């Protein structure tokens, strides 16, 4: 048994200034296993992976690979040692084609002098056959964030590695792509490749992994065989308390209202969606499901006047809106949480507090337009507490936060303005179980208070758990909706991929 330990981390520590991200971590990985790592946001999961990949250098501790102590000084070195890494934050070259991005590492070590673009594209198509149908000759910057995520995965799959690290690869993927990925992972594991799999989705861990390690506050808590434990044990170890109800209680039948907060009629834009009509009732949380590229984000951005020019009518509380741009939307209390956190969700270089106040600076300013730093801090502090934000200081830049905590900053920004209608595109992307259920509770409370909530999510259990009704979008049209007991993964997947009819409404 001991023999097939391929990677052994012992007593490893790493600090960022005053923040102790890892404190004496121990961790072992066996040959051919899929090893899940779970932990709250900021527990130090990504930091450990960055150390293993040579991106960060540990302050102390040892990395033992195949029984020998190694110093991994750079990703180049890690690659040579057979370590492949899918990053939590997408790191691709936007000005370069998909094919070249995928084979960047290969190109780097290639002994050939000349590029063979045709070969690259052929091989890229081969890789994608398993995953998706992205055209390998397009530039990465023209892809949506979820497709970029797929490219990032494809990139790691082409590496000749013995250890493959996947840091929340499914955060922006839908069920279908995720399942493809799991199949690939299993096959690789069978070939003897060891996989470290980081995720906040318990289902994925329990369906696909062999062992699970739990981290908390930069420490290793426990490692167990998946089959010996249940999700609640893991959650328990993660947050140090029992989370009894993952999802808040839904809208009760008698609370249902016919009053529409939002009504959308025949919304179309030039190419991405057509004839979209739906209504959001008072007190309900409406979900939007669909496959990657179905056009969910586009529809919502269209309503908010964020992108493109749309035709059709939008009514808020019965009055038609004449929105010309997103500023109008915000003025009307309509806000949008972007799915691309790093690209357009947060200001990475600016302080956390300044990020949270960005949507409506007037709230933290006095009558003369002077920003009151006290008020700004207080606002950030209050919202940060509410969302369980883990940070050193509120004046640190957002770039110093863990992925999930960055997501909380983005969310705090929206909540800061007391909106009347919120569109959330992948709201809990990368957020840990505890904070996630807190966010769901907040959404439910807001809905109860009459705020319109529309959630787009690729995580079907989340949609089913939190929404009262789910619209399904396929190829830019609403292909149906499900509610009540009809709200099952099967029904939604069905609508998203083939059938075009109204499913039963309870």
């Amino acid at each position, binding site marked *: 048994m001991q023999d097939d330990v391929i990677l052994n981390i012992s007593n490893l520590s790493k600090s960022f200034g005053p923040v102790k991200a890892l404190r004496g971590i121990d961790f072992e990985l066996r040959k051919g296993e899929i090893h899940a790592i779970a932990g709250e946001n900021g527990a130090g999961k990504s930091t450990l992976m960055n150390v293993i990949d040579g991106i960060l250098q540990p302050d102390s501790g040892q990395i033992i690979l195949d029984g020998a102590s190694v110093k991994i000084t750079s990703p180049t070195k890690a690659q040579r040692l057979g370590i492949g890494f899918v990053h939590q934050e997408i790191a691709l070259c936007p000005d370069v084609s998909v094919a070249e991005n995928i084979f960047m590492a290969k190109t780097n070590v290639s002994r050939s002098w000349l590029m063979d673009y045709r070969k690259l594209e052929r091989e890229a198509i081969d890789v994608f056959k398993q995953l998706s149908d992205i055209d390998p000759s397009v530039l990465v910057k023209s892809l949506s964030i979820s497709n970029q995520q797929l490219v990032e995965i494809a990139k790691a799959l082409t590496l000749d590695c013995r250890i493959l690290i996947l840091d929340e690869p499914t955060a922006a993927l839908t069920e279908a792509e995720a399942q493809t990925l799991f199949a690939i992972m299993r096959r690789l594991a069978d070939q003897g490749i060891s996989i470290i799999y980081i995720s906040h989705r318990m289902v994925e861990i329990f369906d696909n992994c062999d062992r699970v390690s739990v981290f908390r506050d930069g420490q290793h808590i426990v490692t167990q065989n998946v089959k010996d434990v249940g999700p609640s044990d893991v959650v328990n170890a993660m947050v140090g308390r029992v989370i009894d109800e993952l999802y808040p209680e839904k809208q009760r039948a008698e609370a249902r209202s016919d009053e529409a907060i939002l009504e959308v009629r025949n919304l179309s834009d030039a190419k991405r969606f057509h004839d979209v009509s739906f209504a959001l009732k008072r007190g309900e949380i409406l979900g939007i499901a669909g496959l990657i590229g179905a056009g969910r984000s586009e529809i919502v951005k269209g309503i908010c006047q964020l992108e493109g020019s749309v035709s059709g009518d939008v009514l808020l509380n019965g009055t038609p809106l004449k929105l010309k741009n997103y500023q109008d939307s915000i003025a009307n209390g309509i806000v949008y949480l972007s799915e691309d956190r790093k690209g357009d969700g*947060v200001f990475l270089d600016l302080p956390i507090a300044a990020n949270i106040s960005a949507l409506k600076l007037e709230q933290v300013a006095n009558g003369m337009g002077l920003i009151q730093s006290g008020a700004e801090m207080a606002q950030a502090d209050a919202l940060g507490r509410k969302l369980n934000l883990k940070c050193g200081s509120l004046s640190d830049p957002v770039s110093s936060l863990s992925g999930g905590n960055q997501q909380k900053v983005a969310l705090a920004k929206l909540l800061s303005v007391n909106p009347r209608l919120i569109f959330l595109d992948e709201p809990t992307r990368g957020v840990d179980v505890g904070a996630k259920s807190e966010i769901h509770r907040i959404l439910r409370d807001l809905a109860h208070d009459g705020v319109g909530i529309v959630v787009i999510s690729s995580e079907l259990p989340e949609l089913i758990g939190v929404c009262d009704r789910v619209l399904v979008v396929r190829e830019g049209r609403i292909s149906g909706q499900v509610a009540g007991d009809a709200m099952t993964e099967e029904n939604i997947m069905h609508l998203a991929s083939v059938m075009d009819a109204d499913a039963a409404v309870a």
Partner: protein
Amino acid sequence: MDSTANLAGEGTVSAEAAPFYKRLLRMRETGLIVIILGLFFIMSFASPYFLTWANMRAMSMAFAVDGILVVGMTILLISGGIDLSVGSVTALAMVIAGWLFLSGIDPWVASGISIALCTGIGAFMGFFVTRIGLHHFIVSLAVMVIARGACLLFTGGRPLGLYTLPPEFKFIGQGTIGPIPIVIVIFLVFVIAFDFMLRRTTMFRKVFYTGSNEKAAAYSGIRTKKVIFLTTTLCSTLCGVAGIIYMARFGSAQPTFGLGLELTIIAAAVIGGASLNGGSGSILGAILGVILLSLVSSSLALLDVSVYWQDIIRGSILLAAVTIDHYLNKRRA
């Protein structure tokens, strides 16, 4: 960490709790202040003339008006832009105002028209950047050439002698309040006002958002194009103001004024912590940058260093200063 500098001074909970000297140590600008004080210390030993009032006055007069230009440039850099036309637009401001004055127009009115024209030039550049979608670099380069051409056209290439400017007009460039030259007073007013506004007002905070991540700013409901348009325009307007002050100071308008000035101004802003990628910078830092550059030039002149060595020494000090500053900041962060 660089980029938090601008907001940190005011913002952080911890900073407000910390004692004054600790806050000072954490400031982005402290490194520069240390370097400048170091040079002061060395110079006061190297030359008996250095710490005289006359020398201090001469040295401050040498950077005061450039200081106004660097304010505009810093704000533009923070918003993610850049302006290569500052030198020639400043010259054009002098030339137009001088030309109008010589055509019989009241110098104050002429100055107003000239500054308005500079604002127009800025708006012109802003239009090409925000509406057409060209890069600031190339637009301002074209405008730099055009404005220089316009200077030649209005003067026939010869400096305009404006000796007849009324004394109350020249006063803004040559007068003093007590022992303090008016130019220095104007400089201080601009610097303090813009430093305060940039740190504190919601209006200028949007400049930081826009420069830090234009898309995220747009997704936060900020009219980023408008912000960029305005910072571009402001920079040119300040060129107009600087041109008028120079005209009053020199009593002439020189078509070749400010050749290569753009690089000095950008360098000063960058030394002071402004990022060429936008999103960070501070007026105080940029002014310290101008002071540093000017101090080095003045010191070399005062010490009668051979001209054949001056550039080498100047460049080396510049490089050494930014390196030291970089390390001081890194240590603190």
